[in-house]
């Protein structure tokens, strides 16, 4: 089993965060799960730690619909930030939106690896993390 150090959840949905965290913890393949309730908090964390490779995550699961700064706005800012990041971060969009517009839009952003529609099964999560290893 491949293991990774850090996974970041950017999502304001307490239930999703609770269940995903539980699922990941059960697999024991992630050392640390960090949670941010909106894009801005996550972005500020990344900005502050962009050369602090030790705390940067290997993977981000990003919700789209959030207050303050939503997933799209986060991606827009992250795209600007990406060239200066000290580490390659894999980003998955995790949204309850089934809108074809959203899915098509996600495809145009090279920083996004894939678009995952909630609910996300535990096996799928394990798969994603294994691919990174």
């Amino acid at each position, binding site marked *: 089993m491949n293991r990774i150090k850090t996974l970041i959840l950017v999502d304001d949905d307490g239930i999703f965060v609770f269940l995903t965290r539980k699922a990941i913890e059960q697999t024991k393949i992630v050392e640390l799960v960090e949670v941010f309730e909106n894009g801005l908090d996550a972005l500020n964390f990344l900005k502050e730690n962009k050369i602090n490779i030790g705390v940067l995550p290997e993977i981000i699961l990003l919700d789209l*619909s959030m207050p303050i700064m939503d997933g799209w706005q986060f991606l827009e800012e992250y795209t600007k930030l990406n060239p200066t990041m000290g580490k390659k971060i894999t980003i998955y969009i995790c949204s309850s939106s089934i809108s074809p517009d959203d899915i098509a839009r996600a495809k145009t952003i090279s920083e996004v690896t894939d678009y995952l529609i909630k609910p996300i099964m535990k096996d799928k999560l394990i798969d994603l993390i294994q691919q990174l290893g």
Partner: protein
Amino acid sequence: MEKITDYKYALDESSIVAITDQKGIIKYVNDNFCNISKYTAEELIGQDHRIINSGYHPKEFIKQLWTTIANGQVWKGELKNKAKDGTVYWVDTTIVPFLDADKKPYQYVAIRSDITDRKKGEEDLKKTLKEISDYKYALDESAIVAITDQKGIITHVNDNFCNISKYTAKELIGKDHRIINSGHHSKEFIKELWTTIANGKVWKGELKNKAKDGSVYWVDTTIVPFLNTDKKPYQYVAIRSDITERKKGEEQIKKNNEKSIEHAHILELKNAQLVDFCNIVSHNLRAPLINISMLVDYIEQSEDEDERKEVLVKIKPVVNHLMDVFNELVESIQVKQDTEIKADQIMLEDCLEKVLRGFETQIEEYEADIQLDFHSAPIIHFPQKYIESILTNLISNALKYKSPDRKPVITIKTKKEANDLVVLSVSDNGLGINLVLHKDHIFKIRKTFHKHPDAKGFGLFMTKTQVEAMNGKIWAESQPEKGSTFFIEFKNQHI
């Protein structure tokens, strides 16, 4: 005797002379006669005078001539004769009968002078005059004609003019042409017309005129200035044709086009609302459903009783949340469906007093300063329950998102604008919203921009729904840390 010979010489030199006997047989012709008739004297003498008859004059005319001279009287007149080569010529003719002792004519002396050129001129003139009168007739029959002097006083109108303007000629002649002015055209337009024709140039255009009974009509108009020898116009001839039907058609088409554009705009709006609605269903309803389904799955799979209990209690809040979103959606759909809702006459001052009463405690607690200015538009037409809800939401936001650094100042005012529009604005000096980030979202359901425990993301969504239900518009200006202003444009405010 010598004197008579002199006279004869003078006559022969100056005139065309012929002498016939009482039967009309030519006995003598002078050189002038030969020249004009192109016969030689030999060819003429002994011939009946009718040899030069052109056949132009009616029988009665010739008969009257012969009766006159046969009765011994002098005949004077103009004759058209025919030369040998078939060409014709006009002669002013005097025929003098020479009488015998019984007072019977024994010969006729015809003295003529060539008036062919004059006659031709006369004929041409007659022809031209006839042509002109034909043109005039054709014009009078086909067009609406008026003539004015250089000051615009009507000097002539034809029947068509009277028919369309519903005035009689008597009522029009001597009047200023402005009698049929409809007032439709701008001063500049009329000035340009007068400048053109006063400079001697033809003006063409379409004019809307007013008839005696106040009805209006459209005429395609050409005004031709008639110039005197100084090239100054001394009168204007206006030739018009009735294009009222065409103009009506054009106006109808224009109206229909405007209506189509408006319908298209409303349709676009409805479409946008539908897309919004689909997004709401996709984002806002699906999310809590997934949560419930995931929670239930988890409980089913878990074997630990404590864990099951821990997860179980999480279901209820999600269900409540789903219920809230669902109720909000239903509420907004009701607004969208309630297209028949009537606009009430709203005295804004009274309405505000009622709305502000609900905020009394907060206003006192925050020491908020509420300034009202409705002098530009004190009354609007809008459904009472919508305007109350809109103002409540906007004022509630202004108080909720106040700056911690200053006392809230909220200014609510109206401004009357062109096209029956009234714009209401609610300004605050609060936290403001970063519109660069949130421009697309401020009116969307479940979107919040500040970490406030009561922020639900429903107020502005509902406000926009209510404004758009009445075909109004809502927009915002805002700067973080300075404050926000919300604008609402109300349509069809006939005040």
